[in-house]
């Protein structure tokens, strides 16, 4: 799963959001690294809806303008959980290896041969 998709699903895991809310939430969650534009966002949302990962929650009219809210569907929650678990295992493996490397590479202050 690519990062923008992961961030969209993560943003929707909190609460249903409309397009603008999703863009700002993804930017906030990623510390500004992932900056979605509307053309890209709605293309991704269409595919996520087609795939049954995201669903339209409701539509509202605010100041004469239509707002469509999206929510994480059951399939999307399962996929996000599986992807998060996969990433967690990768992080754990990398962290363990880095720790081993640090210990091995640390200078020995005592106990060497005379």
């Amino acid at each position: 799963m690519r990062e923008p998709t992961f961030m969209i699903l993560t943003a929707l895991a909190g609460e249903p959001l409309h397009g603008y809310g999703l863009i700002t939430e993804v930017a906030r969650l990623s510390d500004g690294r992932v900056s979605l534009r509307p053309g890209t966002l709605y293309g991704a949302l269409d595919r996520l809806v087609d795939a049954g990962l995201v669903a339209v929650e409701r539509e509202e009219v605010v100041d004469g303008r239509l707002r469509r809210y999206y929510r994480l569907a059951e399939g999307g929650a399962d996929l996000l959980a599986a992807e998060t678990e996969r990433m967690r295992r990768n992080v754990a493996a990398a962290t363990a290896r880095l720790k081993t490397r640090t210990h091995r590479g640390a200078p020995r202050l005592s106990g060497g041969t005379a």
Partner: protein
Amino acid sequence: MSDLERRYLRLVKLFYPDGYRNERGTEIVDTYLALATPDRRWPSPADVVDLAGGGLRQRLRPVGATGIRSGARLAGTLALSTTTALAGSGAVLETNPATTPWFGFAQQGPLFSLGVGLWAAWLLAAVVHVVAPGRWTRLAIGSALVLTVAVIPLAAVTGLFRPPVFVLLPQACLGLVALGVPSRPALWLRLPPLAGAAAAASVSAAVLYGGGNEFPGYYGWPAGQVLPGAGVTLLLVTLLIAVGLALRDDFRGAWALLLLLGPIGMLTLRPLAAEIAVGLYGGGPNPTWTTLAAAALVVAVAAFILVALALAARHRFAFTRAAVERCAECGSPTGGDANR
């Protein structure tokens, strides 16, 4: 309705298909307006690119061509390598002592041909791809692409020599495909454009400085052999990659081949135009604008028909998977078929 809203709506109307525009057009524009600063009057160039990309994806969706994105990255690398190889060859050709008198070097000093700057721009793109892939590479390719098109009016205004149209047109077509280069490629994938340029320049220098060619201008062996040869090489390399990937159930190569068909055809523009000239008026030493335009039209129509047939065949016979099996972002099937 504000001017900005009207302009966004105009862009949506321009890029998106009718049905989708009616369903989603205002939602997209409203989101743009919500993101815009109060003083904004015009959509930014990045907005235009975003809407153009979004519109293209929506147009490709019905024919099941959304997996084309992964193929575009592969095609981009192959196209960039070809453009820079041609640039390496062209740069040697234009700076060769046997060739420069023909370009008017003796009369006009160092700026004897716009081709020197043009090939330098493409070579720069190869270097940028190694040191700063992604955005900077696309900027370098875009600049070289603009220059490739601009040399025609520039040459008309300045009176300086420029590479002929049958060289510029395939370069521009390949350059368009090259814009699809991956943003964060591995180091070994950043090197082919620069390596291709160096190899082509070395071979060209060996041939040109070795003597034996009485007329090494663009209309000599580059027109008849080098450009079509580059086309055949690109075709064979793409086919080999496509077959190799297809054996692993990865169809990126097939998409790349479809994207490269047009540019590969354009590399045969000169001999094709010569054939058309023979048919029209018995032939001549060099192709005219009319025969070149006719040849380009033949190539474009043939490439379009081949791509349309391939998409129709794919849509009808294969790869009809349940939506849930597809990658949520690029539309391509997931699991073992991630790159279809």
